[in-house]
Every structure is written in structure tokens, then in C-alpha cells.
């Protein structure tokens, strides 16, 4: 490929473009080595610090690449590697930013959360391997790498959900997550095999070019496409593959819930965006393989189901789990509002920007739950009564997350949701935006319950909070600051997202 890295110090070799993934994987291996050398060590600070530094380093490299225009039109277009199996372009780098920053926040927060547990090195290395898998997902340019990287992200996640192996909730969550995950990956693999049967290739670009020859195999191709969609729907927790999500998020250690609901979901979208846009471009599809319609159905059902179910929860963590399903529905608009020749890059870019903002606010919200779990306060809304007086700073941060998730104006979530709905209308899908707006109205109800409980209700007299854990606090405040900073910084974000999305079409 001619697309060499244009850096000040001269071009780097092409293979360095995957260095964010390499850094994550090497850090994970390094943790294994450390654990092999000193398998009884419980030096949490070293382990958490190392993994945070690794994630941030990967974040920095990805950000640097993005700013320098690596893999973008300005420097010669996307960089393809390993026989086109991987591709590094603006979109993959953008998503890498989401994964790495979420991973960094989760690692910092886990400093306090896993301090009492055994097998700490494994915890952090699994997080890093999962992040590696997600990064590779965003770079996959072939259904083979898509499947492998998806599994690479999923397998550590199963183990992480089961991390508290003496806790029934954690084990049950892992069981459900794993069983539904295994079923979904089988469906996904079968879908790949059907697409291969219809087109004779696994490379996205080759699939696109042989779509026209697939006469007589339309049914096979259509089934394959829908089954692929199922695999991505599992990763993004979209209906009807969402069933694992409420339990997995509720039962898993809270930092892991944060990781799964933010980064893992974004990864599912990253790969779905690329696969559907590159391999099954609108306008070249044989009649009868209308995946846009499928995504419209899923988007509407997903956001409605998520929000309605969230409205009646008593458990805050489970409420957030359902709200996370609802947000998957919003992000699905990015694929549901595409038309041949429409303003597709704007729609897709808006969805990407929403996922970035969501990465901050949702991670923060789950980490706040981790903080509450750390204090041993209960899980229901009532148990949150009066927390605002005891831990004002964290509760201010939580209020920011809640209002931002609901899409109230002075916060980052407002802009991303606004631009998302706006772009949907721009593409002519005003009814998608309308359903989204109605659901947002409903979501305000349950998000404000948390805020009300924290600030307005009186605390139970027995409410006693323990110490203020440094790591969790750092991560929560960082996420809050990020959510707020994304308001003034929204312009470059949306601009970047829409520019890199343009390259896909």
C-alpha cells in the first residue's frame, strides 16, 4: 500500500499502524509474565498502574495517529495489512480511542475494587486482552478476522464476569452471558458460512464485488446477512439478542459492567458499521436483502424495550443495564437511517460520536455503582437515599452522568443525541428521531429517580460510608470531567467522526 504513515520523523513502516492493539496485547502478556515470576504477589498498585499506563499509551498512540491523519484520505487512504485482513483507517482509530480510554478508567477503578481478591493479574490482563480484541474488531476487514476478534473480545469477558467466583450473582451472570454468547457466536459463524457459500469470499471488499453474481443464492445470502446481524446484535446488546445484558451487567463486578456496556458495545457497533457498509453496500444489494429495514426494526424495538423495562426497575444497576440496551437502540440509528445516496456519513458519524460520549457517561455511571458497592450500600433506589450529603463530589458526578444520559442540554449527552436525531431527520427518517425523542422523555423519569434519591431524600440513619477509595474516585471524576468537556469539545469530535465516516462510503 502506498499509504505510509506521514509523521514528522518520516514514514513508519505500515505494520506499526496496528500498534495500539500491539501495545494492549503486550501489556497483557507482560502482566502474565509478572504473575508467572511472582505468582503470589498482590501488588495491586503495580498491576493496575501498569495496565492503566498501557491503555493510556495505546490511547495516546491512537490519538496521535488520528491527529496526524494516519489511514485517512489526506495521507493516502486506509492502510491494509495481512492480505487485507486488517485495515487501519480513521474509524478504527476513533473507536480505539473509545476502547482504550474506557479500559484505562476501568483499570484505575479496579485498583480498589479487586484489592481484596485473588488472581488480580489475571483480572487486569483479561481486561487488556478483551480491549485488544475490541481494537482488532474495529480494524477487521474480513469476516474471518471479524469472528476471531469478536471471540477474542468475548472470551475474556465471560471470565471477567465470573471473576467473583464465590458470588452467586457473578456466576449466574457469567453462565447466562456465556450461554447466550456461545449460541450467538454459533449463529454468527453459520451466517459467515452462508455468506461465504453465496459469495465465495470472506474479505469484505470481495464480498461486495461478487454480490452481483449471487443470483439464485439471494435467500442464502439474505439468511447469512441476518445471522451476521445477530452476532453483532449480541455484542451490542440489541433485541432479540439482548437477553444476557440485564443479568450480566447486574451480576458482574461493576467495573466489568462498565467495560462491557461501554467498550464492548462500541466494539460491536464498530464492526457492524464496517461489515455492513463495506461488504453489503446499499445500491449494489440484490433485491430482498434489505438490512437497513432490519436495523430500523431493531432500533425501534431495542430503544423502546430498553427504556420501558428500565422505567420500572428497583435496582439501580439493573436500571442502568436496561438503559444501556436503550442506548444501543439510539446508536443503531447510525445504521438504520442509511439510504443509497443519502447523507450517510453524517448519520454514521453522529452515531460514532454518541458512542464516544456514551463511553464516558455510562462508564462513569457504572463506576459510581462500583463505588457504592465498595461502600456496601444496597442496590435499590431507596438505598441511595441521602448519598448526596455523605459523598457530595461523587454524587455530583453521578448527577452529571444521569442528566447527560437523559440528554439534558448542559451536558455532553445532549449534543450527541441531538446531532444523532438531527442527522436521522436529515436523512428523511423523522419517525426514527421521533421514537427516539419519546423514549428520551421516558428515560428522564428513571434517571431523575437516582438524582432525587441522592439529593432530595433523607438518608437512613444507619447509612455509613467507609473510606474514599482513591482509584474509584479518580475514575469517576475523570469520567465526569470528560462528560463535561465533551460539551465544548464536541465540535472537533463530531467533525472527526463525520470525516472518518465519509471514508467508508
Amino acid at each position: 500500500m502506498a499509504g505510509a504513515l506521514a509523521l514528522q520523523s518520516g514514514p513508519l513502516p505500515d505494520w506499526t499502524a496496528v500498534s495500539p492493539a500491539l501495545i494492549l496485547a503486550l501489556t497483557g502478556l507482560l502482566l502474565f509474565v509478572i504473575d508467572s515470576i511472582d505468582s503470589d504477589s498482590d501488588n495491586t498498585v503495580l498491576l493496575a498502574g501498569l495496565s492503566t499506563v498501557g491503555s493510556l499509551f495505546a490511547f495516546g498512540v491512537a490519538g496521535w495517529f488520528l491527529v496526524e491523519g494516519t489511514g485517512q484520505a489526506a495521507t493516502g487512504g486506509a492502510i491494509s495489512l495481512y492480505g487485507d485482513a486488517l485495515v487501519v483507517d480513521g474509524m478504527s482509530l476513533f473507536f480505539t480511542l473509545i476502547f482504550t480510554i474506557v479500559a484505562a478508567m476501568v483499570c484505575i477503578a479496579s485498583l480498589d475494587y479487586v484489592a481484596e481478591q485473588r488472581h488480580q493479574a489475571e483480572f487486569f490482563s483479561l481486561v487488556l486482552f478483551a480491549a485488544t480484541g475490541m481494537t482488532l474488531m474495529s480494524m477487521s476487514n474480513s469476516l474471518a478476522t471479524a469472528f476471531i476478534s469478536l471471540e477474542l473480545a468475548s472470551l475474556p469477558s465471560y471470565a471477567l464476569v465470573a471473576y467473583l467466583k464465590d458470588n452467586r450473582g457473578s456466576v449466574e451472570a457469567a453462565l447466562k452471558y456465556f450461554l447466550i454468547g456461545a449460541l450467538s457466536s454459533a449463529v454468527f459463524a453459520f451466517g459467515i458460512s452462508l455468506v461465504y457459500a453465496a459469495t465465495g469470499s470472506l474479505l469484505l471488499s470481495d464480498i461486495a464485488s461478487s454480490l452481483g453474481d449471487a443470483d439464485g443464492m439471494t435467500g442464502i445470502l439474505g439468511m447469512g446477512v441476518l445471522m451476521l446481524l445477530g452476532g453483532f446484535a449480541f455484542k451490542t446488546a440489541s433485541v432479540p439478542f439482548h437477553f444476557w445484558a440485564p443479568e450480566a451487567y447486574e451480576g458482574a463486578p461493576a467495573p466489568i459492567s462498565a467495560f462491557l456496556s461501554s467498550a464492548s458495545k462500541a466494539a460491536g457497533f464498530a464492526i457492524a458499521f464496517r461489515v455492513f457498509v463495506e461488504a453489503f453496500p446499499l445500491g449494489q444489494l440484490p433485491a430482498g436483502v434489505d438490512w437497513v429495514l432490519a436495523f430500523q426494526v431493531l432500533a425501534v424495538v431495542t430503544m423502546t424495550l430498553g427504556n420501558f423495562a428500565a422505567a420500572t426497575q428497583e435496582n439501580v444497576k439493573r436500571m442502568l443495564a436496561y438503559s444501556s440496551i436503550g442506548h444501543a437502540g439510539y446508536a443503531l440509528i447510525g445504521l438504520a437511517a442509511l439510504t443509497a445516496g443519502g447523507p450517510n456519513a453524517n448519520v454514521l458519524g453522529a452515531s460514532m460520536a454518541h458512542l464516544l460520549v456514551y463511553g464516558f457517561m455510562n462508564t462513569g455511571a457504572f463506576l459510581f455503582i462500583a463505588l457504592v458497592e465498595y461502600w456496601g450500600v444496597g442496590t435499590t433506589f431507596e438505598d441511595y437515599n441521602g448519598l448526596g450529603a455523605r459523598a457530595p463530589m461523587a454524587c455530583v458526578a453521578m448527577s452529571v452522568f444521569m442528566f447527560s444520559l437523559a440528554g439534558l442540554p448542559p451536558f455532553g449527552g445532549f449534543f450527541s443525541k441531538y446531532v444523532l436525531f438531527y442527522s436521522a431527520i436529515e436523512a428523511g427518517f423523522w419517525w426514527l428521531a421521533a421514537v427516539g425523542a419519546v423514549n428520551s422523555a421516558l428515560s428522564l423519569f428513571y434517571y431523575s429517580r437516582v438524582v432525587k434519591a441522592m439529593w432530595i431524600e433523607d438518608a437512613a440513619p444507619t447509612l455509613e460510608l467507609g473510606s474514599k477509595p482513591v482509584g474509584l474516585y479518580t475514575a469517576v471524576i475523570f469520567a465526569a470531567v470528560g462528560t463535561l468537556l465533551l460539551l465544548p469539545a464536541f465540535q472537533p469530535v463530531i467533525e472527526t467522526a463525520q470525516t472518518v465516516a465519509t471514508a467508508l462510503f
Partner: protein
Amino acid sequence: MAGIFDFVPAIVLLPFVSFLVALAVGNRMPKGGAFAGIVATAGSFLLSLATFFTVSQGQTYNQTIYTWAQGLDGAVTLEFGLLIDPLSALMLVIVTLIALLVHIFSLGYMNDEGETGLPRYYAGLGLFTASMLGFVVADNLLMAFMFFELVGLCSYLLIGFWFREPGPPSAAKKAFLVTRFGDYFFLVGVVAVFATFGTAAFAGSESFPHLAEQALAGETSVNTFGFAAETWFTIVGLLVLGGVVGKSAQFPLHTWLPDAMEGPTPVSALIHAATMVAAGVYLVARMYGFYALSPTALAIIALIGGFTALFAATMGVVKREIKQVLAYSTISQYGYMMLGLGGGGYVAATFHLMTHAFFKALLFLGAGSVIIAMHHNENMWDMGGLKEKMPVTYYTFLSGSLALAGIFPFAGFWSKDEVLYETLIHGLGGSPILLVAYAMGLLAVFFTGFYTFRMVFLTFHGKPRSQTARDPHGVRWNVKGPLAVLGVLAATTGVVNMVPVEKLLGIKGIDFLHQWLDMSLDGLTAHHYAELTPYSSAYIGGEATTVAIGAAVSLGLAIAGAGLAYVLYNVPEPTEHTDKLGGIKTLLYNNYYQDEYQVWLANSVVRPISRGADKFDQGVVDGVVNGVSSVSLFSGSRVRRIQTGVVSNYAALLTLGLTVLLLGFGLLGGWFQ
């Protein structure tokens, strides 16, 4: 050139700084941060005055100051900017003046009464003022929306100030949710404006009202999503109107406002006179050039306004608590403003917005003074005879009441008369709907006069009916000062726009407000709006005759209402005529000069209407609002039952979902042929 306009951001920022100060160090400051707020609002007031005078020299200002997001080709550009024209300059002065007076009054109402949590209170006031000012100077719809929302958030914080009591939190929640409900329509409207015009600016050649005008004239084309341009503009206008209806407490989203009386009284003054409720009407006035293009939207606005004016006025008649009466009067008065806007009376509505700001702030602060005196008992039936005990409050309150009732020559008379007059002549000019709205507005005048003076007489006249009323708590300068200022304003602001005098006596040039609003930027002038509106005028007899008849009728009705209240309630021992059926005999016995008609009116017409309105309000409107939420929650509780907890069921449902998708798309796409 560092003109005064460079200081406009400071008008907004000063109260914001006071918010920060009260929040951060309010605990350590004397009076809980009150002085910071007073200094800040005084500064804003002075700057606003300076701005006002600069504008009166004929200068205007329309500048983008910050770009949030520079969209790519065809994408959205989000900006912050300032638009200072006569309308916003006028509003700035009103808001800052009232905010200043409310801050001073709060010293008496909150500090002297030994409330706790004062830093929170003053922080809320500061942020509230800042958001409202930001809303006023906004140069585009998106910025306006953001500050609009902030205003809503602050009202939530302030109404729920006494959150340890049961009432205020739920009232705050209701206010927040009901206005949010309207705001979602508004948000969709904002998005629609962007989608249609690609801009949301209020003023300039690239503004959306201007583009809409050109589109209708066929000079440019915009994306109207397949609708006829006028239909689409009407839809967009009505969507934005959703937010207005919520914030300005118009039917059917008015239910939050009476509940919001649970907040501290100065907050009520601020909300109802100058900020939150005014925001809705101000928004319509701000983008009047857009609404003027759509006859349907105008007619709906007028009808909503007229109906709300009448509806709320009838309900004010049966309320027992002084603040409840004021709450319904607020709803009713904002109905007049909507009526004015819908009826093509842009200047009239702005005029009423201004006079109402003064006399309603006055009435609320007066009520606050009474409430202090009554040791926070708000029931009018426990008052009476306060006239002698608190003369300053009485006379200022009387001034405000005369203005509210629309009695010549107080401020309210001029503005309400002009609203009705504009509606009348445009209605006569071939818009029968406006005549309906006019009739409702006219009828409301009577009720307004009645409940206003019922309130005055019950509170201040007669004999004290409780121990606290016999020995009221005194109030200090910080209560009397704001009352005096507003009392004078309520009596005299009518002079800025004495159109009837001009028309009747032929003195040219005393319609100052008309001239003032004509000095705006191109396309935002009152004359331009008059040209845009689809109305033509017709008169009964001649222009002067119509003016005279209109003024005479409305004044007559107001005096009739006030008179009825006088005979019913200005007695040493008033009884609850409207609430007690057996009161008829006593009434006749004690007031023998009262004829059958008055009794019939008081007991057979007023009461059923009021009761009916009240019942409709609580039964149907609340019912619909509650119904929607319970249906959502109920379906939510059904939906979550899908999640049975048994993983085999999940697998089965997942398979089912996939099968449905496969079958559906297979049949749709003809895979099985």
C-alpha cells in the same frame, strides 16, 4: 470600538458569578450570599439600562460569539450569539430589575425569617436569573432552547427548595416534568427548524423566519419533507409552541403552575413575573416573524390564549389561598399575551408582558409581605383587616390589583385594552375565530375584576378573622422598598403606550412602545410583522369609535367584576358565598340592595363554571397526564417480565426472534420462491 455591547455578556455572567459565589462560599458570607446576588443583579441592571439607552440611540447588535460545532457540508452549525434589539433590551431591563427587587425582598422573606439553606437559595436565584438573561439575549433557537432548559432546571431546584416537606418536592417534580413534556416538542421543533432551514438564527438575512418568508414567496426553496411549505411551517411552529405552552403554563399544560406555589414566595414572583413563565411568551415574540407566516398557527395561539385566559380566571374565583389566586391570575394573564400574539397584536402582547411583569411581581411580593405578617398562613379566610396594620403593603397591593383588574388608568388597563382591541379589529376584519377568542378574553375581564378584588377585600378589608390577623408580624424596609418601587411602576407604566388616548384625542407620537419596537433590525420590526400577519382590520363606526367602545366595554366589565366583589366581600364579616349554598339567604338578608340577578350570577353561573373548570382540570387534564405515565410504567412492568431469569427461555426467545426476522425478511424478499 469597545461599546456597551461588549459588556452584554457580563449581564448574563454577573448573576452566574453570584451563583458560583453563593455555592462556594455562601456559608461563610453574611446573609448567606444575598449581598453577592444583590450586587450582581444591580450590576446587571445598570448594564441593562446602559444597553437600553444605547439601543434607544438606534443601535442594534447581532453577533455570533462562539461556535460549538462547525458542521461539514450540509451538516449543522451550532453557535452561541447575542441579539440585542429593542425587544431583548426591554426584556433585559425588566428581568434584571425584577431579579434585583426579588433579591432585596428575599432578605426580608428568607433571611429575617431565619430560613436555613440560604446559600442554596441564593445560588438558585443567581443561576435562574443568569439562565433567563441568557435566554433573552440568545440569537438562535438552539441557544434559546438550552437556556430555556436551564431555566426549567433552576425552577425545579427553587420550587423544591423546602424539600424536606412533602409538598414542594412533588410540586417541583411536576413543574419539571410537565414543562419537559412540552420541551420535547420544542426540541423536535428545533431539530425540524435545523433540518428545514439549516440554521436557527432569529435575525439577519440567513435567519429562519426570513428564509421561511422567502420560501413562501417562492424566492428560495427549503426542505419541507414533502409537505406544502405553509403546512410544514405550521407544523414546525406548533412543535415549538409545545415548549411555549408548557413554560407559559397555557392550557392544557398549566397544571404545574398552581402547584409551584409551594416554593418560596419571592421565587414565585420571579417565576411568574419575569422569568420562566415569561420565557414562553417571549419566545413567540422573538420568532414572531415565523409565526406571522402561518394563519393556522396564529389562530391556534389566539384560541389557546383566549381560552386559557377565561378558563384560569374562572378558577381563580373559588380559591381560598392568596397565592393560589395569584397563580391562576398569572395563567390567565399569560393567556392574554398569547391572545395578543395570536391576534396580530405583537406590540400589544409585548406591552402586556411588560406591565404584567411589574404588577404581578408587585402582587407576589405583596402577598409575600402578607404571608410574613400572617406567620406563613396563606388562607385568605384567616386574614381581613390588614389595611390598617400594614398600609404600605395595602396601597402598593391595591395599585397592583387595579392594574391586574384593568382599571383605568393603571398599567394593566392600557395593555389589556390594547390586546383586546387588536384582536377585535382583526377579528372584525374577517377572522371569525379571533372574535371567538376575543369574546372569551372579554368575559375573562369580568372574572379577573371579581377575583382580584375578592382577594383584596378578603385580605385587607373587613375585620380580622384570626388571632394572627389581629396582631400581624411587622415587615422591614427590605420588604417595603421593592413594593414601593413596583407600586409606582404598576400605576404608571401605562404611559409608554397610550394608544387609546392617541386615537381618541388625536395626539400623535405618544405610542412610544410602537416606535420603540419599530427600531429593530430589518425584518424584526413591528411594522414588518404587521405586514406579515394575514389579518386585515375593520372597525365599528370608525377607528376612534371602536377604540372607545372596546375600552368602555372592557373597563365596564372589569368594574362590574370589581363591584360584584365589593358588594359580596367588602363587609366586616364576609362569608363564603361561592362555596356555601346556604349562604344565599344570609346574603340577601345582609345585603338587601343586591338584586336577584347578582345572586343568580354569583351562585348559578360562576360557581358551576368554576367548579366545572376545576373538575375538568383535575379529572381530564391531570387524568391524561397521569394516564400516559401509568400506561408507560405498566407496559414497562409487563415488558420486563419477558426477562424470566431462566436462560433456556432466553435461548428460546432469541431463536424465536431470529426466526421471525428470517421468515419476515424471507417472505418480504422472496427468498423462498
